[in-house]
């Protein structure tokens, strides 16, 4: 199943709608990165509101996407982490390598990207 990657202004928005298998997550990673290059996006928002589980594999992949997108010139914000998921991630010890920008929801995520880009000039 292909996950839509939407373009809003100069940002890409990806909303993960259902639980994904490892292969699907890795495919999404590939799709996002080629789309960033294609449209020269300066920002990326990944909305994970629908996910009721984020395990270490998903956490690592999100982090990889953010790091790679950054190298391609797109700043990444992950939005919509549920409270129970946040508590679980902290206990899982994901904070060790969790170097992601996060925001409460899509709107705040876009705001964050806009501010970052203003500062960057």
């Amino acid at each position, binding site marked *: 199943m292909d996950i839509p990657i939407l373009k809003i202004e100069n940002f890409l928005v990806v909303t993960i709608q259902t*639980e994904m*298998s*490892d*292969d699907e997550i890795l495919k999404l990673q590939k799709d996002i990165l080629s789309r960033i290059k294609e449209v020269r996006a300066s920002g990326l928002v990944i909305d994970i509101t629908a996910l*009721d*589980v*984020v*395990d*270490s*594999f998903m*956490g*690592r992949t999100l982090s990889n996407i953010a790091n790679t997108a950054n190298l391609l010139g797109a700043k990444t914000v992950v939005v919509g982490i*549920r*409270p*129970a*998921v946040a*508590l*679980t991630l902290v*206990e*899982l*010890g*994901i904070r*060790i*390598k969790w170097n992601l920008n996060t925001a409460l929801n899509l709107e705040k995520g876009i705001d964050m990207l806009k501010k970052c880009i203003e500062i960057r000039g």
Partner: protein
Amino acid sequence: MSEIEKRISIKSSADIITARGVGREMAKQLGFNIVDQTKITTAISELTRNIVTYTGKGKVIIKRIHSDVDKRDGMAIICTDKGPGIESIELVLEAGYSTSNSLGLGLSGAKMLMDDFDIKSKPGEGTRVTIKKWLR
């Protein structure tokens, strides 16, 4: 409660999702709150992924348990495989240790998220991990 024990064979990453779904449903039925449901489901995800990553196949048993001592109910998840086994259990339980370039949070994470954790492994024979969560 009609079904109190479920067995799922784990062969591919799609089975991880199945196991998570079964675990989540049972945790909900037993009355675990949303945070504990999430922790249990995440722990199942970590352990079943270990089976897929390191051994290729195995099985998971998810069941309701009762403790006569404490007079409380809970849930147990038993993951078994006949894979290569683990040389040093102490080492794999260290957060950040990994032989597969992952975060190394699978076993240590599952231990952190649950109340009880037990691992038995023999090199060449396989591994069995049992985790439990009790209702408060």
